[in-house]
């Protein structure tokens, strides 16, 4: 079984209240030097069968129509290799 990861983030121009709240809290906790924080969603999909072109195309469509709301969000699809220290491809 292979894992495909879909990351969904608010478009850069869209307000991200969660990310802002996190960022504002950091200095209070003693963490400086973080200029910006954006918070998004990460979906880990376990795919039955091979992750070939066709499967990726379907997942891409799924991300576009369902996992992300493209009015306000962008997404990326990556196949995750077996190792944790994996390379990522878009």
């Amino acid at each position, binding site marked *: 079984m292979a894992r495909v990861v879909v990351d969904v983030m608010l478009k850069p121009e869209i307000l991200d*209240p*969660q990310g802002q709240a996190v960022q504002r*809290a950091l200095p*209070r*906790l003693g963490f400086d030097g973080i200029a910006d924080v954006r918070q998004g969603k990460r979906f880990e999909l376990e795919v039955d069968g091979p992750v070939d072109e066709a499967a990726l195309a379907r997942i891409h469509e799924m991300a576009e129509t369902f996992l992300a709301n493209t009015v306000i969000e962008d997404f990326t699809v990556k196949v995750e290799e077996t190792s944790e220290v994996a390379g990522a491809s878009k």
Partner: protein
Amino acid sequence: MTARIGVVTFPGTLDDQDALRAARLAGAEPVSLWHRDKDLKQVDAVVLAGGFSYGDYLRAGAISRFSPVMETIIEQAKAGMPVLGICNGFQILTEAHLLPGAMLRNNHLHFICRDQKLRVENAGTAWTSDYEQGQEIQVPLKNMDGRYVADERTLDELEAEGRVAFRYLDMNPNGSLRDIAGITNEAGNVVGLMPHPEHAVEPLVGTGRTDGLGFFTSILKKLVTA
């Protein structure tokens, strides 16, 4: 002389006025506390009220837990000061590790507001002595992140030590493990629960019940006789 019960206002706290009112109706002297002040104004007990402090952003209670007032509260709670966390307050207490476990998004993924039946499983805490062991009460419940989780060992420990203070009856509204609605620390001075006793203190408003008043009369008795 009566006891002073402090209620903390964090940015985004909503039920602070209600908690102050409940304390007053029980006969205590209500005192407002501010998240930026380490000073607890010599209160005898503290209520962390419900709401969406910091918008519940990141995780419910996660940001508030690091506020200056919490530094003092954590210290004092460990030294025995009674602390009651209601809803968001309960979430803050778990984030602060004053109580074990964590609160997660309701299993049905919706905010839920209802009149909820509970059983008081431990009438020996600082906040529950005016109830009978096993007494059934009904108070409003309203939350988005009310699912109590902890690992099996912790749950078993809580059960064995009688630290499950309240359990949901009839219906588990959020998927909390073992129907847990509230718990207490070992010493019984720190109690957290998801439902809202402070909304059930007057016969007319809300659901029209006063089952929640016992929390406030319990602590008052304890403090005044102490």
